[in-house]
């Protein structure tokens, strides 16, 4: 499980994450949502040990990520949002590196790598440098890296970016299967339609604070049109958005001389 307690992150005196508290139980897929700049990625980075929190505590399978990072990280599979990967390695090499770092049994690692490469349709490009792959293929390599050690906790930051419809569907089924086998999954995504179908619970972050922590269906019921999107907009909208849209459209409709 993941337990986040009073998590705070400050940059130059400004709080970007302000006292966030939540927990994700085994067998649960939880969505972590919020508008751009809300502090989602910062929270995720603190949870996986990439960033040091200003205050607060993160427990992964009851191991404190700050005081016992190795035990915590052994329980963790993470897919970062920014395609951070060693691009001059091949997918095969990258996955072997991940297997070695997790101390996996060589035979088991080899079998899983083979299955993952085939499953994500990466078999043809397994020996090509990652830098030459498409964005979607890179994302599949990252996903494979996260899934390979079969950790009890999975944290996926925008895992669907660049994936085609088939891969999204495959990943969705895979995550549901994993959750049913007792994995703890935390998912960050802006694709609310997928979140609606996949996640049991939604955490909504706005300006560094949690504004919602409820089961997905319960949250949807609160909205006017029965969608997660309208709940999201309602809870995170600022008044300037509508005024800003009007102003921008007005500026577009003005006739201007072409640049010299």
């Amino acid at each position, binding site marked *: 499980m993941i337990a986040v307690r009073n998590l705070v992150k400050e940059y130059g005196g400004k709080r970007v994450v302000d006292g966030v508290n939540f927990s994700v139980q085994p067998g649960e897929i939880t969505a972590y949502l919020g508008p751009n700049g809300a502090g989602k990625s910062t929270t995720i980075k603190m949870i996986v040990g990439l960033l*040091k929190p200003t205050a607060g505590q993160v427990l992964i399978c009851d191991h404190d990520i700050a005081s016992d990072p*190795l035990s915590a990280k052994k329980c963790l599979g993470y897919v970062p949002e920014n395609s951070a990967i060693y691009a001059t390695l091949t997918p095969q090499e990258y996955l072997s590196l991940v297997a070695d770092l997790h101390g996996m049994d060589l035979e088991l690692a080899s079998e899983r790598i083979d299955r993952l490469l085939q499953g994500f349709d990466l078999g043809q490009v397994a020996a090509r*440098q990652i830098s030459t792959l498409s964005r979607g293929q890179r994302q599949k390599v990252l996903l494979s890296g996260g899934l390979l050690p079969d950790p009890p906790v999975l944290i996926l930051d925008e895992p669907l970016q660049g994936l085609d419809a088939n891969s999204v569907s495959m990943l969705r089924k895979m995550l549901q299967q994993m959750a049913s086998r007792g994995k703890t999954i935390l998912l960050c995504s802006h694709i609310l339609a997928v979140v609606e179908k996949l996640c049991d619970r939604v955490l909504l972050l706005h300006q560094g604070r949690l504004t919602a922590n409820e089961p997905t269906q319960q949250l949807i019921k609160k909205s006017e049109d029965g969608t997660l999107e309208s709940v999201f907009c309602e809870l995170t909208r600022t008044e300037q958005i509508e005024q800003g849209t009007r102003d921008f459209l007005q500026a577009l409709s003005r006739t201007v001389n072409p640049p010299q």
Partner: protein
Amino acid sequence: MNWFFVLISRWLGADARSVRALTRAFLIMDLRQQHYAAATATRPSHLLSPLFLVVAQCLTMSAAMCLILLARVEVFFFAFANLTLSLLVLATTIIVEFHEIVLNPDDLDIIRHRPISSRTYTLARLLNLGFYWSLMYLALNLLPILIGAGLKDAGWWYAPAYLLVSGFASLIVAALTILLLSMISSGPRLEAVKNVLAWTQILLILVVGYGGQFMLRDTNHAVQMWAAKPPSWATWIPTFQLASLIDRFADHPRANEWLGIFGLFALSSFVLTLAAARLNHLYANMDFSPNRLSRTIKMPQVGRLTNRGFDWLLGSSSARLGFWLGRVQLRRDTNLLLRCLLPLQYPIALVVLGTWTGQFSNPCVVFDPTRTLLPSLAVFLCALAVPVMIYQLAFCADYSGSWLLMTGPLGDRQGFVQGIATALIAMLLTPLALILLGLLWYLWRDESAAALHAILAWLWCWPAARAGVWLVLPAPPFSVSTTRGVSLGLPPLPFASLTLLAMFFTSLHTMFAHLTYYWPIALGLPIAIWFVLEFPAGKRLEKLWNAA
């Protein structure tokens, strides 16, 4: 061997399997770094690793030093000069080329969430650096060991003495460099230190290259005299003490000399342990990520890029855009600025050495090529630096944004690149021409000759920029990522042709600068060539844009 590695790793608190996996991955990635030939559009069979170029540069410097000193000095000075060169080049190369091997903030995002301890990461990174250290150590010290053994006063013990002393000293320097890097961390301070050290490298090339040829012509044997009776302050130079240890050891090692070697071993172990501990601490605390707090950059008016009074000079909007982008990139990409400044080492070196050796006379007054060749050459070398700078413009830290230039409706590409070249000339070469003017005026006491030479140098920069676009620019400006050793990847044939042309004009200048009718032709010629080169440069840009 495997059990030994596991044992050592375990003793150091690292996981042997992870260390091996990480080191292997780091080395594979380093050896697969983009090769400069890819940027120069040569065939795949011509690919050369930038790493090879760095090693080749070290080897060349070491060879030049050995050849200059061979048969001229004794063991002490031979070792002193070679050790000084070797240790300085090692330190500057680690900082300028290989600093991210030790502290790579990108690693945080990629492996920090994996279950590896800070000691494992530290050991893997140190082994990674150890690979480069070994290559550079061999490139810088192999020739001094082999050639030095042939010196007439070198005994049988010379080679082992040099091997041990240079080995431990190189380890100490590498470890101290790591400590220095870890203390200044990253961000603007690291960039400033890199600048200073890159200029140190320039100074070294100056000393080895031009100082060397001065030594060959020195009939007073100044260097030999210095080596025979060194001044008292020289004893404070660490390499002086190391060289005297080699000298004594090479003669016949006694207890004191063995003690000296043991002292070096102990010191290198201590400094290396300190460096490893510091790295371990930084990695454990995730304390080496770059400064992500960006400063606010104010624009005078939203939606308008201003060039502070240059707009009227630039003509088309594409040229204005190019000038703005060039100026901004040169200011904000310190690495680009540094690579553009490097080719100025040659004219600067000529001015310094020419002045020092009394070979910098006014070609308008003196008709003696031995005294006027260097000032003439300095003028044309200023222009010859421009194609190298133009080549460097293709490589930029911000290369990923270049799709905007490729997909945007940039009608006047020639004007755009001309704008960038104008920024380059305005920011780097105009100040250089002004410095040249002041210096020549001071040296010659002849303001008109000084002004004519400075203007000539400045005027030649313009056609040189177009020639650079035509012959050496490998890709559209700011569109290729910077890789290790990339600054050395200039296409040799076009650059050799431009060098020959510069030599030709230097000869003409040396012979005819004292004639009045020479000057209108000399000043008009670059302008004419600038117009002539417009067509081929434009064609080349079309080709580059289409290829991109």
